[in-house]
Structure formats: structure tokens, C-alpha cells
């Protein structure tokens, strides 16, 4: 798969995952790499980019063992961006299915 395309899809997945529940960095990496064949080391830069784009807020949560964890929480801007991505991706998928002769309209 084209790496740029894949990166875009992963970006959307990261936004979606964190929209469901607040997650810490390692959790995001572990969860996504279980589902998609992706290098773990490509995910943190995406997470960071999305944070810099102000789609996430971050906060620290103390743990019973070890250092406090940094959690990512999606904000309104992030939700709006996710909707844009989902809509664009949905249209794109439909178009691909049409070309491939699938059942999607």
C-alpha cells in the first residue's frame, strides 16, 4: 500500500480510537499495530502531529507503579477533523467499490 495513503488512514484510525476513549501513547501503538500491519515506530510521530495540530488535549495520570502516564483526549477540533476524514474516506471507499464492480452505490 502507498505509504502516504497508509499514513493518512492511520491518522484517521488514531483519531477514531481516541474519540472512543482517552488513551496513552503506548496503548495507541499497541492497539493499532494489532489490527493493522504497521511499523510501531511510525505511530508516535502521527500522534505527535495530531497533538500539535491541536486535535488532542493531554493530561497526566498517576499510576500505582511507575511514572505517570500521558493520556491523549480528543477535543472539538479533533472531532470535527475526524468527521471530515470519515466523510472523505467513506466517499473514497464507495468510489473504489464502484470501480471494482462491488455492490456499494
Amino acid at each position, binding site marked *: 500500500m502507498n505509504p502516504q495513503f497508509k499514513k493518512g488512514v492511520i491518522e484517521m484510525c488514531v483519531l477514531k480510537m481516541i474519540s472512543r476513549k482517552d488513551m496513552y501513547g*503506548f496503548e495507541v501503538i499497541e492497539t493499532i499495530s494489532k489490527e493493522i500491519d504497521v511499523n510501531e*515506530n511510525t505511530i508516535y510521530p502521527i500522534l*505527535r502531529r495530531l497533538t500539535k495540530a491541536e486535535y488532542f488535549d493531554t493530561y497526566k495520570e498517576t499510576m500505582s507503579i511507575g*511514572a505517570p502516564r500521558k493520556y491523549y483526549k480528543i477535543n472539538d477540533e479533533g472531532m470535527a477533523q475526524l468527521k471530515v476524514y470519515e466523510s472523505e474516506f467513506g466517499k473514497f471507499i464507495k468510489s473504489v467499490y464502484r470501480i471494482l464492480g462491488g455492490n456499494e452505490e
Partner: protein
Amino acid sequence: MKNEYLVQLKDLLDRYEMDESEKQEIVSDYSDMYDSWVAKEMSQEEIEEKLGKPKNIVRSLVEGYRRIPKPSDKRTKIIAISPFISLIAFFILGFGFNEWVYSWMVFLLVPVIAIVVEMSRDKDPHITTALSPFAATIAFYILGMQYGLWHPGWLVFIIIPMLGIFNSRKEMNLRVLLVSLSPFLAGILFIYLGEKGYYHPAWLVFFIIPFIGATLEKSFNKALIIVSSIVFGVALYLYIGYTFEEWYWSLFAFLPLVLFWIINGDIVITTGDGDVPRGYKIVSVIAILGYLAVSLTTQAWIITWLIFLIIPVYAINREVKGNERTIALTPFIALTIFMVLGFFFTLWAWAWLVFLIIPITAIIKEA
């Protein structure tokens, strides 16, 4: 390893005009992720593969950031141009004057220029110490090639520690200075007496070093024990040796001195602290046993010390990854080839060329 990884990451981030807080945040995030993988019981190699090489991480994080330009003042330019000057001089001396045997020395200009340029800027008093290995190498080579004085021409290398001590004289008191100079005094005496035909028992003059060194002992009693043990040992050694012709047994005369040094903590026998992995210890033992076995069998002591290179080679192989590993190994490969060509084929005059594989490999790999 984690620290090294994070330090490397921070160093690379420091090359960009990024807020310090942002850099710290990235390093902290990677520290957390590193710990999370550690908790999953992954090896350091696996963790660093999962996190990615610091170089690649930084590349993916610094989009939109300006790289801090490297200082490119006149001094840097002079250093940068020196290899080319050396190369041109090398060919002129070689093709123009047929001085191939000596022309390689112009390459010493590269580190010499760098040392002069960098150290003269800070008026570093150790500049002559830093330059002395090159001066000594040139003098040694000329003495050897021109006059066949390889021995005692090697003595010129004494200039290196002597200059080191001389340049540090202001930081030393008189007693420390005397102790520092004692090895040279002993060495000169040893060579002088040796050349008169008394290498044995002239080696005893090296006891001058601990003898003078005893003056640094804070306790008078300890100093007295050391001095008297040396006097007693030397006297008994000579007595047993000359009376009974039993020189090996007479070495036991120094047993009290050695025992005192061990008790006093001057001689410490150690196999490394708990952090030294077992592999290092095994390789070290193999190297020592291999060295002794091969040397005693072949009597080729001049070249068998190469066996000890397996220790740093093992360490590099274990600790260094990727391109850096190949680059780090080239000096050892070059040294081995150099010694083999010189020792077995007497190609010393040409064998040095093999050292060129070090910069060549580095340039190719980095490119």
C-alpha cells in the same frame, strides 16, 4: 542502553530550532514508551527496533523546523580542506619525487591541522602534548627508515607522556611531579644499563617508581613498609639469584611487597562489577588463554597480541548496530591486515595504505 538511546535522540533534536520544552516532551514520551516495552519483557534490541532509530524518529518529527546551521568559520574551512591538501602533497611527493615511503606522512597533517586550529583557539596548554604523537611518529619513522634505528628510536615516544607531565606541572606539587617522572628515570636507566649488557638484573631499577611513590603515602608506617619491602626484596632476590643461580625462585623475595600491596588495596584483582555481561568475561578469558597458547607454541609474540582484538571486536559486534558497526570494526580489520602484511610479507612500507579503508568505509556507509 536506554539512556544512550535517549541521549542520542536529544542530541539529534538539538540540531533543530525547536523549543526546549518540546524536545524534553518528546524525550519523555520515548522514555515512557521504552519503559512500556521493557515491561513487556522485550530485549533492548527489540525495543529499539519497535521505537525506531533516533535518526529516523527525528526526521519524522522535525518537519517545518529549521536546522541550526553548523559553524562554518575560517577555522572549520581550514580543517575541512586539509585532507585535500594532504592528498595533493602525497601525490606530488610520490609521483614528483618518488618519495612514496615517506609521503604517507603528509596525511598526519589532517589531525595536526585540526589540533592546531582547535586548541590554539582556546590557548590550550596541552597543545604540544596533543601534537607529540605525530612528531614522535615522524621522528621514529625517519630514524628507522633512514638510519635503521628502529631500536632505540622507539624511545622518542617517551616524549608523549613527558610533555603530558610537563604541561600539567602547574597542577602538580613537587612530590607528584617526581613520582610522575620516575618511570622515565627508571626507563632511561634501564635502557642505559641494558645496552651495557645488564638488561638482567637492570629491570630492578623499575622499583624506583614505587620507591618514590611511597612518598605519597599519607601514613608514615605504610611508606616505611613499602620502602623496606622493596629494599629487602631486591637484596634477597639478588642474593638468592647470584648465590644459588635460582632466579625464578628468587622472585619470591618480592612476595611480602606484593602481599602488602594487595592488603593495602594498591593491587586489586577484579573481574568487573555485576553489570559486566558474562560474554565479555568469557571472551576475555578466551583471548588471554589463546594469546598464551599461540604465543608459546609459535613464539610469534610480535603478532600474537592481535588475538586481544577479539575483545573490542566482540564488544562492537554486541553493542553497535547497522552502519556504525561496520565503521567501528574497520580499524581492527585494518590493523590486522597491516600487521599480517608487515609481519609475514615484510610490506611495512606499503601496508599502512590499508588504513585508508577506515575513512573510505565511513564515507561510503554514511553516504
